[in-house]
């Protein structure tokens, strides 16, 4: 699959990564090269194969739905680039 500049810009918007106009063309070439290379998988007949969704043959363990940790607001906020009154602070989202 060859990606064009518009496709790269669309993917970058989905991934929330701002790209400069000058970056689109080289990235389109690089990503197309990688995608073309992984498309060798099309040679493999997987008609009756179930996808592997777990590395280990195990069921996910269940536990009681109860609080096991917490009360650490200030510890957690200490790493925030910006916080206010015990909350993470972000640019205004509601007018």
């Amino acid at each position: 699959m060859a990606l064009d500049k518009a496709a790269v810009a669309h993917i970058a918007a989905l991934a929330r990564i701002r790209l400069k106009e000058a970056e689109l063309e080289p990235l389109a070439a690089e990503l197309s090269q990688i995608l073309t290379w992984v498309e060798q998988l099309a040679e493999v007949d997987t008609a009756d194969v179930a996808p592997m969704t777990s590395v280990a043959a195990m069921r996910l363990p269940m536990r009681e739905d109860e609080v096991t940790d917490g009360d650490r607001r200030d510890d957690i906020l200490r790493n925030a680039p910006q916080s206010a009154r015990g909350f993470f602070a972000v640019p205004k989202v509601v007018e």
Partner: protein
Amino acid sequence: MSRLTELTIAEARTGLGAKQFSARELAEAYIAAMERARPLNAYITETPEIALDMAAASDARIAKGETRPLDGIPIAVKDLFCTKGVLTTAASHILDGFHPPYESTVTEKLWQAGAVMLGKTNLDEFAMGSSTTTSYHKPTENPWRKSGDNRPLVPGGSSGGSAAAVASHAALGATGTDTGGSIRQPASFCGIVGLKPTYGRCSRWGVVAYASSLDHPGPIARNVRDAAILLGAMAGHDPRDSTSATLPVPDFEKALTGDVRGLRIGVPKEYRADGMPAEIEALWQQGAQWLREAGAEPVEVSLPMTKYALAAYYIIAPAEASSNLARYDGVKYGLRVAGDSLDEMYELTRAEGFGAEVKRRVLIGTYVLSAGYYDAYYLKAQKVRALIARDFAAAFENVDCLLTPTAPSAAFAIGEKQDDPIAMYLNDVFTVPANLVGLPALSVPAGLSADGLPLGLQIVGRAFDEEMVLRVGDVLERAAQFTHRPSFIADAR
């Protein structure tokens, strides 16, 4: 004792127990070595005060006769493990200033066992790479040089800082993580031992996530016995990692019996293809011959689907990465670049905070998971992964372990392969299959290239049979008698 940094973990343990030297003296020797090794840029953060505090605690326990398994052993930690109150960067700009409020399970277990933290080692950004050149904190240099050529070489990656530190004697052992070869390939490039355990053996809790179904924490050490000792302390069930195995942890050192008589060693014939360099092929045959002489029986096995492993990996790993790295948004921790709206703040933060390789992988991952392409790429890759697992299951019906080269080359120069992502990805052609199927795999230094650089051989075992892998690796190590030393050793004298 002027050469404390020459000792292995097993020897240091004996010396500490016999009170030939103190944990403080050992820590001081390694702190001095770490300083001398600074030109390699193996560490992002040195923590000498913490090391001395931990060493004092070890000395107190040893004096009281309450010695723990790793008391006083100075360890480097890949900067992908969260360490409480100590800067943790994943070698990314986007985690600037992040001081985790918690400790990863694996490092907590090491400290509980008495190990001493020297610092946090360099890596490829978010562990995405095979050369430790994508780090925001500059590349790490391999302590080895080609004979007659002084150009700096890569230590491999992504655990290149850990491997360079252990190889140059700037740490006695180290933690690494291995998503596609990131413990084994740097171990091979630096002439030391690296073990990727079975998926679920070591908890992933508190390890910065790259690709969750492929990430494996494990040890890096100077020999197989030391790797066994470290694994024993790092392994074990953790309820905070839902994929952590509930199996008991065996005494891995006891597996080193030196006896491989009657074992069947699988040699996968498909790995011979793709123009393998003659010296790697020769070393591989030599490895099989050593095991034959020790009483094992090398037999050819077929893994026809493994040639698709790398392509499947470069769909699955970026897909998981694009999801895991969504959390870096400038809100909770690390870098924030101001924007007029929330979305603009996200986009500008991620544009500045992620390096080129991380962006490439997040974009590929976003694409293969996007509407209309999910079945063609991601689902297809998961089906191929199932077929690769079938190949291994069939092979292990007839053999006890597999023997392969670790990497298709020795260490290359810093700057080489930078312009061609796929050439870089091919470094992991022999290591990636074990990640896709979660099997334990060990790299042991086995010989030198024509240029005088170390080359490793890899042993792959059945799930949760690290003991077999270590047992065979130990015999291979004894046969290879790899006593060569790198050009640079941070010796305390």
